[in-house]
């Protein structure tokens, strides 16, 4: 397993090439092309702004204005997380010809998913920052923690993607299961609401959810401009490592069955 993990690092070039293929192919033939990566989050943000300032006005919560921007801080990384996982549930069967016909390191494929969605996330960030500045949110020194949170999310998502992609070769049900799980998970994570809205007695449930701490990490460093809860984040980091280990372990164990089963 460790040798395979090491060789995964050697395939950086391959991952890079496949990610760029993925991105190029996605916008090929569209008029705006790469520009869509900016336009999509921008439109999303505008829609939320409209909904939450004109139609549906949530009770003013201290420090949560503008609400749409708060929402966006969580929504952008969540989209990265959930699309990576959804795509990884079919990535191996979609690339069956690669796995069966060429000697090809299959573990590269879920990584490509995570990273191509990561690129979309990165391209959404300028929009987020532009609005943070526009609304004069305090950009503080704590923004230095932001890359750390991103790193935790990368590790966590990759582990999960490995887990899901390898299992879904054998159980096709996982795709449908996952879509429902992600909806549930979305609402069980403080993205559309601040964690303070949850009654104290239920907080522990949210605390068990690693995504809670990752999302709060973004909200703290970007939106609130305050020091993130670094103890909880450190634990989340360890959890992410464990998830990655388990995910990769499973993937590695099942690797030989892929060529016959996809």
């Amino acid at each position, binding site marked *: 397993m460790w040798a395979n993990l090491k060789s995964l690092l050697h395939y950086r*070039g*391959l991952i890079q*090439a*496949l990610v760029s*293929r993925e991105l*190029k*192919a996605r916008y*090929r*033939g569209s008029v705006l092309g790469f520009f869509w990566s900016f336009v999509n989050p921008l439109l999303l943000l505008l829609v939320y702004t409209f909904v939450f300032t004109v139609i549906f006005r949530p009770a003013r919560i201290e420090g949560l204005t503008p609400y749409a921007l708060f929402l966006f801080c969580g929504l952008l990384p969540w989209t990265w997380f959930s699309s990576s996982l959804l795509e990884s549930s079919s990535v191996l069967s979609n*690339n069956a*010809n*690669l*796995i*069966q*016909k*060429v*000697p*090809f390191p299959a573990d590269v494929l879920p990584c490509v998913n995570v990273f191509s969605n990561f690129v979309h996330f990165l391209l959404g960030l300028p929009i987020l920052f532009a609005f943070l500045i526009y609304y004069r949110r305090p950009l503080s020194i704590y923004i230095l923690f932001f890359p750390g949170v991103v790193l935790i999310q990368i590790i966590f998502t990759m582990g999960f993607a490995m887990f899901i992609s390898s299992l879904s070769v*054998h159980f096709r049900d996982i795709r449908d299961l996952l879509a429902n799980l992600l909806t549930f998970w979305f609402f069980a994570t403080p993205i559309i609401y601040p964690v303070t809205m949850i009654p104290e007695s239920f907080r522990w449930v949210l605390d068990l959810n690693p995504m809670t701490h990752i999302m709060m990490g973004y909200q703290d460093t970007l939106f609130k401009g305050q020091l993130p809860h670094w103890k909880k984040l450190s634990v989340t980091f360890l959890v992410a490592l464990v998830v990655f280990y388990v995910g990769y*372990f*499973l993937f590695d*164990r*099942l690797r*030989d*069955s892929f*060529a*016959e089963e996809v």
Partner: protein
Amino acid sequence: MAPAVIVEDLTKLYRKYSQKRRFQTMKSALIKGDLFRQLRPEEVFLALEKVSFTVEKGETFGIIGSNGAGKSTLLKIIAGTLRSTYGKVLVDGRISALIELGAGFHPEISGRENIYINGIILGLSKKEIQQRFDDTVRFAELEEFIEHPIKTYSTGMYLRLGFAIAINVEPDVLLIDEVIAVGDEAFYRKCLDKIKEFQWKKKTILIVSHALGMIKTLCDRAILLQKGRVKQIGDPRMVVDAYLSDVAEKEERELSRLHSQTLEQYVLGAEAKPEGEAHPPATEYEKKRWGSREIEIREVKLLDKRGQERHIFNSGEPMEIRMTIYARKKIKDFIFGVGIFNSGGISCYGTNTHIEKFAPQEVSGEGMVSFKIERLDLIEGTYFLDVAAHQIDGTPYDYHRQLYTFRVKSLIADIGVFRPQHQWSFSPNISFKKM
């Protein structure tokens, strides 16, 4: 010379697909690294069984066998895309597998980008791809289209590009699985040239193919697989011959089975019917055999020159059609006839005793009618045989309509219905070279 590929006791089991009870518990799966419980023998399919061979460096090695013999599985295991169940495979050097051309092409992006990505997938560095880029494009003859998305390519362009990329990897060991047979003649020639260039460079090549002529001319040695086992290894000419006689044997078995099945269904058992009684009104049956049965054809055999029953004949060989007949009473008005039809339903030859001026005298009881063909000068193909006994006015006693099948094999690919004995000769100013 050092071996480039060593295959030792290679066995591959496939699990037969069934929905039920596919998995053992997750726990033992993780501990043993095997997701499936121990399978019972009837649940597995043995694709390869104890296959061992060694391919020396610089050798061109052919792999032949009928469909399902395990050729592609073997190649995939050597390529590393499949894992063997038991046994091991050692390969010395970089492998490039032409198992499927253009695996991993993305239809939306250009040929240029696909060359880069495919090269990386095949294990080249960016720099290496850059160096080979022009060669690749030239070989694929895609200079004009290289910036177009691959989805606009024709099948031929797609194949050429796939082949060009894989071949320009400069592998030490090249695996080819029947891929070059799919292109047109020009592409095929080009691939052959490239393979010969590889041979000249002393690279190791493993070819799976049904193009037996190619195996004979290109390969240094060949292996014959049969149902996952090694049947023969050695000189390609001998191995191909062994394969061909295997195929002929199998075909003979098949035809002979068909023949006895036909006899069973239409001819035997029919004798128990009392005279004059109508046969079951099954129309299918009536189309194949009809008549009053006053004279009955009870058995039909095709014999070769040694009197052995056979169903495959070489063009020009002798063939005997032997009928066992039975007349229920003394009959004075009778004719025996035979007819040969090709698979297109065209009558190739037909004759009877009346046409050939045999005046019938009398027949009674069991007898034998033999029709000997000295030279079966038919072209290659499948033929059907009519045999009949009837009255001079055509009223049938027993008519067997195309019940019997035989095949004619020929080394010459001539066309038409039959092959008249012939000779070519030319005036001295027309010259030929022997091919």
